[in-house]
């Protein structure tokens, strides 16, 4: 065990469990099950591509701590996946190529 006090650990877990559940429930409870104005619906429909684009960038170039760009072997792996997709490949081969290329780049280049 580390020297992190036990109370700090369990308070962190309890508060995060509650806030995570509340955040996951918020959108479905507030906006689900009713008809929204067309303009609102149109913006909501565009949240998926906007958030997916951001997730690609953050997972490819971000670090766990945040506040920095971290260019490493992931870029090569995701780039290789992009080539597979551009040539008409589907998600599963693209993902497999991404993992293999990233692992090889780490092994060979130490990136």
């Amino acid at each position: 065990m580390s020297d992190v006090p036990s109370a700090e650990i369990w308070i962190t877990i309890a508060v995060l469990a509650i806030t995570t559940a509340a955040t996951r429930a918020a959108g479905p409870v507030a906006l689900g099950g009713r008809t929204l104005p067309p303009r609102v619906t149109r913006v909501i429909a565009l949240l998926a591509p906007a958030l997916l684009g951001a997730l690609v960038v953050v997972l490819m170039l971000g670090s766990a701590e945040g506040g920095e760009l971290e260019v490493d072997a992931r870029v090569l792996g995701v780039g290789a996946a992009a080539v597979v997709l551009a040539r008409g490949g589907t998600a599963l081969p693209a993902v497999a190529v991404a993992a293999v290329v990233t692992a090889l780049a780490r092994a060979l280049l130490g990136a």
Partner: protein
Amino acid sequence: MRGVNILGHPGVREGLRLGLPYALASLILGISFGVIAEPVIGPLAAIVMSATLYAGSAQFAATAVLASGGSALAAIVAGVLLNARYGPMGIALAPSLRGGPLRRAAIGQTMIDFAWAASSRGGGRFDPAFMVGASMSAYPAWVGGTAIGVAAGDEIGDPSALGLDAIFPAFFLALLVEGELRRGRPLVAAGLGSLIALALLPLTPAGVPIIAASVAAVVAGVGRSEP
């Protein structure tokens, strides 16, 4: 939800089945969380955290804050910032949900990045049953993986050597290319969302770039109507 009947739903079963390859990735990421978290917060807390949060990035971030000597408050802020993306993700999902508020809240609990993204059907529609199934196939892998990592500790090498951290960005890219980018506005939203995230990545705490990318949906959505 309808309790035990849930596994009889064809959409749930499809999600369970198609989620399996990614459940394997969750297993290995869960193992790496267990390995990293056990020395910081102890074996029981690591497993309880995975079982009650089911949110990888927030768990890694909160644990990293505690490991570096940060307070519970700092760890909570880091975790809340990372999980705030479930706000806009849940808003995107909401129009596709049927039933009362309790049922909708319960379905919202199965929201993890991968299952949410994989259940997107383009044009703003989602298949909630598929999301529930895909999330259910990854949950035991995530919690069980954490337990394995806790038990195995240092015996296991560095999982990043397997290139697993490239799996999810590649998967989300594939979903964008396959499902979302057929028409004008989604392309603008995805491009702008990526640029916002890229611009904020070096400047803000983790989590903020993804939430801020929601602005791209508003910008792309309020322009003049398509011809």
